[in-house]
């Protein structure tokens, strides 16, 4: 591919004591694509996601964003680059409403002096939240009931909407449908496509092969802390993916 | 008249209902409240029955509107703290007098000996409009203004046990002469120690007029009559037996010559005895103040050798007497000092000591 990568990881190493989670792992994301990151348990997916999200620093290796080398010391630095992450546990505040969650840490203050005192512009945040839900087709009607009162699918939608609202470039989703039923999963996958259609790249971690095949543009396979294969989704099938994941077939790294 | 009867009945019923609800909330412990509800009934009913017989004080009653059916004087006793045997005994004496003089006596108090807890209770009592208040002020200054408010509301105030910086607002103040009590303790302890060794005072907390006086009296008594006894100091237990025990353990470690301790109140003496027992010493004498069941037990066990016993029953009795005198236009005695009894294992069951021991209920 001749296109400039959005995010490029090269030779990432991360050890936890004696556990070698990543052993020189590469990864590529191109602008505006949905790339699935797959791999068996212990392949290093979650660790790699945390490094890209700025939650943990790598022991070794480089990250490039728009071709430029970057270091991500904490999540806010990743956010400043336009990278948002939807964690498996969603990281929502259950007692707060969707609008409060969507704008958490990025609250809109009232204009003028009163805003300088820290007063929230709840009306503006609620309106923008409802607009974001509508825009993404998220099945959340109320922006004002506590998140704890909502279904798992609605919560997932709120988390995804939050990420999509603030990510200019890249949304990372760790197992977004793992806890959801069929109908809700379908809605979230649809939401992912709409995020991509807005020009934002998406990394999705998933164990669900049909889901990967249905939503992604490309697939990258990790195994034992390394990237072992890259596929264009349209040109592959489940058998090939599973073979790569289990090590039955090794593909030379294209990067 | 009918109207007032009905209201009194309604009141009684509602009070009983609340007590019931409270009891139901309190883990369905229904039994203890029944006598209380009944008591309330007895206390209120006769008032209504006797209504027609107007007595001279009825005029005074009219000053307090919507307080119908009050024939007998209402007197409220506010002890320094609830659940303390000294104050319970005072209550017993007051009840005895109330029965004798035909007045209603109510007891209200706070669970902590502190003006922060006592003042709200006092204010509510004032609002309930009794004819007289017997109170053991928990602070010499902080209670001044609230008690002035009581006087301004036409309530007679009698100070019992403790007092105020300016007691002139009260019609009478009745207390043990604690200075004397302290010096009696010094004499008792000096005798036990054979006039030599070191002595310690475990007091409650500074700033309480009564216990401060006991400590002072003890120190004076020691200086005057027991020149060969070394005074090692006064420590404060904060009214916690455990604290008193710790203090005694520590001082015993530091002062091997320690042979005598004066515990200036119930918990201080109790804790001091515990501390001595913990250290396994049998050559240290303890003189306590007051005679609650726990101390009498310790006296019997030989852990405490003498008790300076106040006469709280007498204080309570005389308190009510003075209140009634004030209400009926009699002549008050402004300052009344009540006496002491010294209890030892030998005289504990004698007729001139036994009636003065404190009670946990009347």
């Amino acid at each position: 591919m001749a296109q400039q990568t959005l995010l490029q990881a090269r030779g990432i190493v991360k050890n936890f004591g004696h556990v070698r989670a990543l052993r020189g792992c590469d990864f590529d994301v191109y602008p505006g694509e949905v790339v699935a990151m797959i791999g068996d348990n212990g392949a290093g997916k979650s660790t790699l996601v945390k490094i890209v999200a700025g939650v943990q620093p790598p022991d070794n290796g480089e990250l490039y964003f728009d071709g430029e080398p970057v270091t991500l010391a904490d999540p806010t630095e990743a956010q400043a680059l336009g990278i948002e992450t939807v964690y498996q546990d969603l990281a929502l505040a259950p007692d707060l409403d969707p609008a409060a969650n969507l704008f958490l840490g990025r609250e809109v203050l009232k204009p003028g002096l009163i805003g300088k005192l820290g007063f929230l512009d709840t009306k503006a945040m609620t309106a923008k939240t409802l607009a974001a839900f509508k825009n993404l087709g998220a099945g959340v009607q109320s922006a004002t009931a506590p998140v704890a009162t909502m279904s798992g699918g609605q919560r997932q939608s709120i988390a995804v909407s939050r990420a999509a609202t603030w990510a200019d470039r890249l949304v990372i989703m760790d197992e977004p449908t793992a806890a959801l039923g069929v109908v809700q999963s379908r809605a979230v996958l649809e939401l992912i496509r709409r995020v991509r259609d807005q020009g934002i790249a998406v990394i999705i971690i998933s164990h669900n092969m049909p889901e990967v095949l249905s939503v992604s543009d490309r697939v990258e396979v990790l195994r034992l802390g390394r990237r072992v294969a890259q596929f264009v989704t349209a040109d592959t099938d489940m058998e090939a993916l599973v073979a790569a994941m289990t090590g039955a077939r090794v593909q030379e790294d294209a990067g | 008249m009918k109207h007032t009867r009905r209201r009194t009945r309604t009141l009684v019923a509602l009070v009983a209902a609340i007590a019931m609800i409270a009891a139901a909330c309190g883990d369905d412990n229904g039994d203890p409240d029944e006598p209380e509800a009944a008591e309330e009934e007895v206390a209120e009913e006769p008032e209504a029955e006797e209504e027609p017989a107007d007595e001279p004080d009825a005029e005074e009653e009219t000053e307090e509107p919507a307080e119908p059916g009050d024939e007998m004087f209402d007197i409220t006793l506010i002890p320094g703290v609830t659940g303390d045997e000294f104050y319970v005994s005072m209550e017993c004496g007051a009840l005895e007098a109330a029965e004798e003089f035909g007045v209603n006596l109510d007891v209200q108090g706070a669970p902590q000996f502190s003006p922060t807890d006592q003042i709200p209770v006092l204010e509510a009592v004032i609002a309930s409009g009794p004819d007289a208040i017997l109170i053991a002020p928990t602070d010499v200054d902080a209670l001044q203004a609230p008690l002035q408010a009581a006087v301004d509301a036409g309530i007679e105030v009698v100070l019992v046990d403790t007092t105020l910086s300016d007691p002139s607002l009260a019609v009478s103040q009745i207390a043990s002469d604690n200075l004397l009590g302290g010096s009696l303790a010094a004499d008792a302890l000096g005798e036990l120690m054979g006039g030599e060794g070191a002595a310690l005072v475990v007091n409650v907390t500074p700033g309480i007029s009564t216990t401060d006086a006991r400590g002072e009296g003890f120190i004076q008594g020691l200086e005057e009559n027991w020149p060969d006894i070394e005074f090692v100091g006064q420590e404060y237990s904060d009214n916690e037996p455990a604290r008193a025990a710790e203090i005694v353990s520590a001082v015993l470690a530091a002062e091997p010559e320690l042979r005598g301790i004066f515990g200036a109140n119930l918990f201080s003496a109790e804790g001091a005895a515990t501390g001595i027992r913990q250290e396994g010493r049998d050559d240290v004498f303890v003189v306590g103040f007051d005679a609650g069941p726990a101390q009498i037990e310790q006296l019997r066990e030989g852990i405490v050798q003498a008790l300076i016993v106040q006469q709280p029953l007498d204080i309570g009795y005389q308190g009510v007497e003075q209140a009634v005198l004030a209400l009926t236009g009699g002549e008050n005695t402004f300052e009344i000092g009540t006496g002491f009894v010294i209890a030892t294992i030998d005289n504990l069951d004698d007729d001139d000591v036994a009636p003065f021991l404190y009670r946990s209920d009347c």
Partner: protein
Amino acid sequence: MTQIPETDLDTNGATDAEGAQAPPSALKWLTDRLADSTAFIFVALLAMILVFTVLRPDAFATVNNLRNIAIAASILLVLSIGQTFVIGTAGIDISVGSMLVFSGVVASLAMAEVGGGQGWASVGVGVAVSLLAGGFWGMVNGLLVTKVKLPPLIVTLGTFGGVLGLAKVLTGGINLRTVPNELVNTLGIGRAFGVVPWLVILALVLTAIFGVVLRYTRFGRYTLAIGSNEEAARRVGIDVDLHLLKVYTLSGLLAGVAGIMNLARFTNTTIQGHDTDNLQSIAAVVIGGTSLFGGIATMFGTLVGVFIPTTLQNGFVILRIQPFWQEVAVGAVLILAVYVDQLKRRARNRL
């Protein structure tokens, strides 16, 4: 969906978002509020007042008595404001009463140094010293919680004992009585327009200000977000440690204010009188519907929660009920309030 119990944060938004579609009937509004535990305890307080008023209208429902109830509640109310924020973050502050005493002690010492303990200069110095002392200990609590990473219960249990001990060291355990008349005659026993005590006004103004802060500002939002899910707050980039430090410092500052109020009211430092302030303030906050697990807190609830025990005590004394029943009743109310909160939560999280 059944009744959604609404938290502090969403009530104002609800009218914006949903009011337009279907204007709720007055009845629905009422039932919604009744499902809310804050409303439940408010109704309970009104019921208490009603019962006492019916039983003893001459004694209970008088201006003077209600004023006394308000005064009795005022100092605890100020402590409970800070406690509401702390519990809102899923923390706890056991040390409020000790910080109050310490602030009062150092303020009294300072006032004795200035103008011989009399005059407005003395008052000014005393107030400043009290706030500084309270704020200082609050900050110490906050630093121990955030930097040393100790549990708030342990930290404030430590300062509860330690700070009170220091106060006693400074005074030899004797209550200090240096309080300028200027302070006693204004804040202590003075009344605005001869009717409303300044103690009560101060407490209510602080309650209103911090109620607004809790509900309408970013400070309040962060407080509840941290209490609701601290990790989530960290991940969106909120400086959780800094915010917790501010919250514990606020609790200390308010204890400093309460320390001055206490001096003004009791004209001495009442060292022995605040051992249970912590439990009383925690009970008031929890009765008021603030969740011990954090994330849900309302200042109005705390206001009601402070007044319930105070009113009960006053009413019981006036009705001449044995004093111990008041403790039983407050305990029962506390358990009932937490039970209602649990029920509400269970219903809400059913989905």
